[in-house]
């Protein structure tokens, strides 16, 4: 009941069919997971081009092999204390479905951590109040190796961040 998910190096062929692989990353001491199938790539932090009239968590856009990709700062998005970007700071580039469109978006996190197989049966719905993260973005919680893993609903998180909340001409935060 406690430890059903185990860390894998990535190629665990015996993984049950109901299990999904999650890439986890660190953010202010907590470990979060995103569906690995959504992750396009992980790249180091690089300079961005700022965009006016956007909330502060939208750091700007980068050139990703010819595509203009927005970069969101997850610490700011979740209202966490900001820190200077260090050597472990990375951008996880994910593909999300927002409305009818698929978008490619980069999120800045403190560091990447592991890839876990998570059995769907072990995922628990988040409690109504869940610390610092707005719970609507949390898909589930799982316990792995005695620690809590927060699985994010990346579609909803990004969709909310870039579509719903941005009004043209919105005040620069």
């Amino acid at each position, binding site marked *: 009941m406690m430890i059903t998910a185990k860390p894998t190096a990535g190629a665990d062929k015996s993984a049950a069919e109901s299990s999904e692989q999650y890439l986890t990353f660190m953010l202010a001491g907590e470990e979060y997971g995103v569906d690995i199938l959504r992750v396009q790539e992980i790249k180091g932090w690089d300079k961005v081009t700022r965009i*006016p009239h956007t909330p502060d968590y939208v750091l700007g*856009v980068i*050139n990703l092999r010819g595509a203009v990709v*927005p970069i969101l700062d997850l610490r700011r998005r979740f209202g966490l204390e900001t820190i200077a970007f260090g050597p472990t700071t990375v951008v996880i580039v994910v593909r999300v479905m927002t409305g009818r469109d698929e978008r*490619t978006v980069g999120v800045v996190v403190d560091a990447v951590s592991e890839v876990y197989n998570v059995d769907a049966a072990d995922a628990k719905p988040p409690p109504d109040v869940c610390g610092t993260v707005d719970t609507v973005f949390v898909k589930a919680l799982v316990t792995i190796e005695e620690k809590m893993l927060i699985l994010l609903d990346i579609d909803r998180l990004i969709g909310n961040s870039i579509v719903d909340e941005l009004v*043209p001409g919105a005040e620069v935060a």
Partner: protein
Amino acid sequence: MTIDLEMAEIAKVFFQESREGLDVMESGLLSLGATADRENINTIFRAAHSIKGGSATFGFAEVAGFTHGVETLLDEMRNGVRPVTAEAIQTLLQACDCLREMIAATEAEQPLDQVRIASLNSDITHILGGGPSEAPALAPVSVPTSAPAEGNAAAGTGAVHVPCGWRVIFQPVAGLLRLRNEPTRMFAELRRLGEVVARADVSRLPQLDALDPESCYLSWNIEITGQISRPKLDEIFDWVDSGCRLEFTPTGEAVPAAPVPAAQTVQQPQVPNAAPEQAKAGSAADADRGASAGAPAQKAAGDSGSIRVATEKVDDIINLVGELLITQSMLSGFADGIDPNDLDRLRQGLAQLARNTRELQESVMQIRMLPISFAFNRFPRIVHDLSRKLAKKVELKLSGEGTELDKTVLEKISDPLVHLVRNALDHGLEIPERRIAAGKQETGTLELAAFHEGGNIIIEVRDDGAGLNKAKILQKARERALVAPDQELTDEQIDNLIFMPGFSTAEQISDVSGRGVGMDVVRRNINDLGGHVQISSKEGLGSTIRIRLPLTLAILDGQLVRVGKEIYIISLLAIVETIQVARERVNTLVGRTEVFRLRDEYLPVVKLCDQFGVEPDSRSAEDGLLVVLEADGKRVGVLVDDLLAQQQVVIKSLESNFKSVAGIAGATILGDGTVALIIDAPGLISSAAKQGAGAVAAHAA
């Protein structure tokens, strides 16, 4: 892949080509009004014939049947048996519309509008009935391509007497199989009609070493028994192209002593080489071959050797070429930094790369370019219909139809153009009596012209009608409080008031214009394309509407500007001039709005640093440069820290991965690989104008 899927693909080509054929018919019919030349009728006839042949092959019997009536009428006109009357042309035009709907309905697998079909059919029969020729049955009859009229008539009469069997001698050309004709499929079709005994004649079969596996050496002697009408047989062999020997002999006692020739050899004329006019008429006659071969067909516009390419594929190439440009400019930047002896060669190579990429880019961009005739082609019909409806006499003049512009621009400009033309006909041109009273020619002129000017394409809609009533416009604008009561406006400014939202001087809304798509929508659509629209008008002499459009939406000639550490791009099209300003010419109004005096005009100053929240080098106007931008006849001065290079930039959408942002039209990637934002000049100006208008007016007063 199943045959069904393959057929569906081919049918799609057929639908597409039928539409093109209908366009050919329509434009032919419209020009027929002026002169009834044979060549033109031939073109129309061939288009109709291709549609009939194609639809019969795909089993769209109703389309084929209906087209047959049309074709019969055209055939008689072609042979001079039937005079070309205005009534007949009108009916044929309606038939084109009807066919268009039938094809759309067939494609969508919707039921056909039987009432309309029947009424048009009876119209056509009525016209046909009034002359020397017998009205043939409206059954799905197929006639071999360009068959002589006698053969046509014989087929028509032959349909009445049905023999109880046929002997068919079928000796195809060697290239039959290459044209994707399959004799076994034809035999299968024949078998559906009756009992078939086919004997293959192998006498022409060469030795194995001389045998070309793709050629057809066989000929057949086919006996078929059953009550089969001649047209049914024709239908099956309709695709068999020119050069084949094809003989039909009726067998059995039911053959009447009718005018049907005992053995009728249909020696079909060589379709591909028929005449140069065939090439001129575009692919109309080739359509049937194209459809059967599933080959990319030519556009009906008349240019030979054009291809049909999926837009996505072209877009992909354009993206790649954009990448190439970026790589190239990245390398150029790198070359400046190193300094061994190889530098010269590297520079040379780079110069070559630059030239190649530019050429490649130009030629690839050309693929997306289409002549504006694609948008202009619909106007003869619109003008024809509308002038009848409004009882006005109008001559439509088109010029510069060959002017090319980007497909996307072309598609988006069509609707605004239609609106402008409708407007010109409804409000601009007067009825004949009034024109005569004004001492003008009875027939009004409407001109559509397209030409290149600088890096832009200009489209002008000119009429020699009544022009705009300036007094009325000004009065209306004052009533609506669009203009201050004491404000003086130039004639040009008054004319351009009609582009204001909610502005209409029409006393009553007719069903021609005033359908809710106002001139403001026209202007917005054109602005969205990065274009610009203006009207100039002389009372009593007419109006000219001038639309300026960029050639393409994919690439932009940009001016790089710097504000603090950020680099932005402004379209060169929007920039009027750039000036260094003296302190004394900048005034601060009502607290914080700054205006700048440029010659006789007060322009609001937009500080990009404030707009975009950037830390600039300096906030005061005299330290920076003022870039004067113009859009929709409004001007603002935009304060930047520095001007950098001018270069062509590939426009990337911000929306594809993010969303649209106020004041930003898009993004691009600079030589160093970073993203730079492109400033939305019209957006910036209109938001600045809203803030500054009051202040400027207050100052000017």
